[in-house]
Structure formats: C-alpha cells, structure tokens
C-alpha cells in the first residue's frame, strides 16, 4: 500500500499546510511579543506548532526530502543533481521575491501603521522573522520538489 506522502496531491496539501502553520506560528509569536491581542496567540501557537510538526514529518521527513536536498552531490545521480539544481534556482527566485516583499511591507508598516509594531513604534526584522526566513531558505528547495516531482519517496 502506498503511503500518504507518496501521492503528489497529498504532498501539495502538506506543503501548503506547512507554510500556513509557519505563518500562524510567526504571527502568534509576534502577537505575543508586540501585545497585539490577548488570548488567541496562545491557541494559534499550539495549533501552529502541532500542524507544523505533523506536516514537516509527513512531507519532508517520511519522503526523505529534507535529507535529499541536504545531501552531498557526490551521493546523487545525474538526474537527481538536475532536480536539485532546478529546485535551487526556483527557490532562489521565490526567496528573493519574498525577502523584497517583506522589506516593502516593513517600510510601509513604519510609514503608515506604526501602531501595529512594537510599543516603541519600531518595526525591525526580529528574531521570529529571522528564524522563519532561515527555515524558509532550507525548506523552499524541498517544497518545490515535493510540489512538482511525481516520485519523491526515496530509498536511501
């Protein structure tokens, strides 16, 4: 019987849910840090964390994708090297666009919505967003492969 992540549609759903949980986690931590609203950030934090761990294990752990994108090129065959190169190229584009968008939002936030930022009215990158961007830089190539490749469950 085929496992849950063996189906491309399931993996795509897992990728979307993993990014959703990452956004939920980041927003919840920022809401606590900047004291936006009381109450819901804790629920968001718990739901986000559970969803994040579940989707990460299913999409990137059980498929071996996390290991695959971090493997030395010497251990891969020529098709796999091509797959990795393609995913890195697409990931680089996505990451650049996302980083530029975030800088734009930061700039607009400082200009027009200083009340939403920290109590001092300062909108900095912050450790939460920094952690989210570091995670994103590692996971983007794997999620591109999970999204686009038909067979990803790898026998190592």
């Amino acid at each position: 019987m085929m496992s849950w992540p063996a189906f491309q549609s399931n993996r795509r759903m897992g990728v979307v849910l993993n990014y959703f949980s990452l956004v939920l986690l980041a927003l919840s931590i920022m809401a606590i840090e900047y004291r936006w609203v009381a109450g819901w950030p804790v629920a968001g934090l718990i739901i986000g964390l559970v969803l994040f761990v579940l989707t990460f294990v299913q999409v990137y752990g059980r498929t071996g994708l996390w290991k695959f994108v971090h493997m030395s090129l010497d251990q891969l065959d020529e098709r796999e090297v091509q797959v990795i190169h393609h995913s890195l190229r697409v990931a680089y584009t996505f990451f650049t666009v996302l980083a530029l968008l975030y800088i734009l939002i930061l700039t607009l936030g400082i200009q027009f919505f200083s009340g939403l930022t920290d109590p001092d009215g300062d909108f900095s990158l912050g450790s939460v967003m920094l952690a989210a961007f570091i995670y994103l830089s590692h996971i983007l190539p794997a999620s591109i492969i999970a999204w686009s490749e038909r067979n990803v469950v790898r026998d190592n």
Partner: protein
Amino acid sequence: MESRKLYNRIGVLRRERGISRKDLAEEIGVNFQTVGYLEREEYSPSLDLALRISEFFGLPVEMIFSTEPMQPLSREVLDLRRSKGNE
C-alpha cells in the same frame, strides 16, 4: 536550446532479461527511481549514462536509444530478414 526527446528500449530489454529496476540501477550506478524515469522517457540520459546502459546490455547504443519513436524489436528483426531476403 531545447533538446530533442530521446526514445529508448530500456524497459523492454530489462524485462526480457528478468532484471529488477533496483538491480539495473545498481549496475549502471543510479537511483532506482531514475531507471523508472528513463523507462517512461521522462528523462534523457547523458552520453556517459547511455554508454553505461549499452555496455550493460551488450548492445550498440543506437539499438537502445533513438530520437525517433522506436518500433518493436520483433518488427525490426522481421524487416531485417525481409531486407536480407531481397538481397
């Protein structure tokens, strides 16, 4: 530059010799999934890999790979016999 699609007989030759994808993959030094991609003609191999495959099957590379859709081997043998008969 867009490369041409490569057709091949890897699947037929592998089944004919009763080898699993995993065994063939080990012999030619690739992951077993790559053999699946090659057989479905979703991946065109490098010259080095194509030569390794032809060495493994003991056949000339042009008998395994072609840029034209490949005829069944039985048909090619029949055509060959007919052309020899006409000589």
